[in-house]
């Protein structure tokens, strides 16, 4: 009796785990031709996070429409499973494996040499190898733009920055943000808060409310899924906010100062294009910034930004596009 019960329990658990993978791993069906390039994308977050991971997913989908490729993606890959997930894709015969974000750097540099015939790419990283390319992203520029705009908006000279965790991209964005605030308003101070989560929207909202309580009167959200809560908090408390996509503007149409978009799909698309067209190799260099159209600004809100400041912001956009503002 007991044994039977245990077996049933085991079967149940296996079924549950199976369901999980059914939910995450979406492999497009191929006709079994050998020629089709198989591309895999590993994401740190969800494809509907309205930000970082979603942009990459969109790039993958665009590439699928454009080229005769077979794609697969996997979401929310935990740190502990990065290595095994990459290895799994490589041994299943994928030709190009793209990891989205510097978090994957250790895992991908370890696995890449084991599969010399497979192409590996990692975004937001300077990693390099015979079959591995790092796609540079100038995060500071995005932060700089947001900081510059909020420096002009703040009345009490207290500007907020809410990010998900203290990762490489978030820290670089923060550095750019602080530089941007100082450039437009040297007397303003920056208050930084981390939500510690990529998807806990409620916690994002509470974190934003907490810094508003401490006198922050405008904010930039760079907190992925938890950032949706930050935008809702700003909308509720009528706090001007800089967001990272035009769709986020819709959550707080009256409070959104502007959107500094990072069109990550550009980077994903250019990696896939270079692979399909045979340019992929150790000498390939892809960098994303304002000048390569990775970053764009949209939805400047005339009610929050007057004509004089708008001219200033447009001048900064031009300078960034021309590469006149540099970071170390």
């Amino acid at each position, binding site marked *: 009796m007991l044994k039977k019960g245990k077996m049933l329990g085991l079967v149940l658990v296996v079924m549950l785990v199976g369901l999980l993978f059914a939910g995450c791993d979406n492999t497009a069906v191929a006709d079994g031709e050998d020629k089709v390039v198989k591309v895999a994308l590993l994401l740190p977050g969800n494809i509907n996070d309205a930000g970082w991971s979603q942009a990459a997913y969109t790039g993958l989908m665009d590439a699928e429409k454009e080229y005769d490729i077979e794609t697969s993606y996997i979401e929310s890959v935990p740190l502990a499973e990065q290595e095994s997930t990459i290895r799994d894709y490589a041994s299943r015969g994928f030709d190009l494996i793209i990891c989205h974000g510097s978090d994957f750097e250790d895992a991908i540099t370890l696995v890449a040499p084991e599969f010399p015939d497979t192409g590996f790419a990692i975004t937001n990283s300077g990693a390099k190898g015979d079959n591995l390319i790092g796609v540079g992203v100038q995060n500071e520029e995005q932060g700089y733009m947001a900081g510059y705009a909020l420096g002009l908006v703040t009345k009490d000279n207290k500007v907020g920055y809410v990010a998900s965790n203290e990762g490489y991209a978030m820290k670089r964005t923060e550095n750019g943000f602080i530089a941007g605030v100082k450039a437009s308003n040297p007397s303003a101070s920056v208050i930084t808060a981390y939500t510690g989560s990529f998807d806990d929207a409620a916690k994002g909202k509470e974190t934003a*409310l907490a810094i508003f309580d401490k006198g922050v009167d405008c904010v930039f959200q760079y907190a992925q899924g938890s950032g949706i809560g930050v935008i809702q908090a700003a909308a509720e408390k009528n706090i001007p906010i800089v967001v990272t996509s035009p769709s986020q503007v819709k959550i707080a149409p009256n409070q959104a100062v502007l959107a500094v978009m990072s069109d990550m799909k550009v980077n994903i698309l250019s990696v896939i294009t270079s692979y399909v067209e045979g340019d992929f190799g150790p000498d390939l260099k892809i960098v994303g910034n304002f000048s390569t159209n990775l970053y764009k600004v949209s939805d400047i809100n005339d009610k929050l930004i007057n004509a004089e400041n708008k001219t200033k912001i447009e001048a900064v956009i031009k300078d960034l596009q021309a590469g006149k503002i540099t970071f170390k």
Partner: protein
Amino acid sequence: MEQFLSIFTEDFFYATIRMASPIILAALGEVILERAGIFNLGIEGVMLFGAFFAVLGSFLTGNAWMGVVFALLIGVVLGLVYALAVVTIRSNQAVTGTGINILAIGLTSLLSRMIWGVQAVPLTVKGIGPLKIPFLGDIPVIGAVVFNHSPLVYLAYIMIGVVYFILYRTSWGLKIRSIGEQPKAADTMGINVIGWKYGMCVISSMFSAVAGAILSLSFMNLFVDNMSGGRGYMAVASVILGQWNPMGAALGGLIFGAGNAIQMRLQAFGVPIPSSLLLVLPMVIALIVVLAVRGSASARPSALAKPYYKE
């Protein structure tokens, strides 16, 4: 020090009460269940299911309260599934609970994409916003801090008293507690042990599902993948921290809520402490409290997590 004290504003207490409420509600459900000798690690997943179905219900009917009804229904279903697994089949409770958590992350993400697709911004539905209680809400300071919350938040606090009363002042409570301590003796007394265990699984699961609805309908008005964010685990910890007493469990929930509210405001000071350390502050506080209360005799139900065999 003066700067530290400036944390404790009206807004701080308001945020503490609000943030603690889903943890408290889930912890109360877990107290009832553990008192009946079963523990459920899967309440994290039940919460996530509740959060999702609450949004789905509000989306389909246009009425946020129907969302709560949907959450209650999924709570019943998950409670029955759990009871079937651990009471009838007698599978390992920790493993089954973990299975529910994994299932919840996968299935709610999958369903939300099947129903709403991958949207640029999560779909918003009608939520259950704050309701100022007449007269009481006008009391200076206290009115704004205590009597201006969402009805679901009040519900969490009202349930503390209800659960306490049922457990300690009614014959039902006596039956539940005897099942958790001496199920064989309870059976001999004519108590339907299996039936009560099924009932407690369902009720506690309903508590957690509504706790999820607090997240998705009261705090927000939308569903985000994995939005339960570990609150279910905090609820399980609160039960141990509160020594299987509803009051204690509620206190545990408040500690997590206050710890988070403090942590968020400390970050706002720009204190030179790494943010990752501040983020674990609520857990550190909980750990200290657990060590402090450990000295007293444990109130852990004797038959907790042991499968029951009727002879």
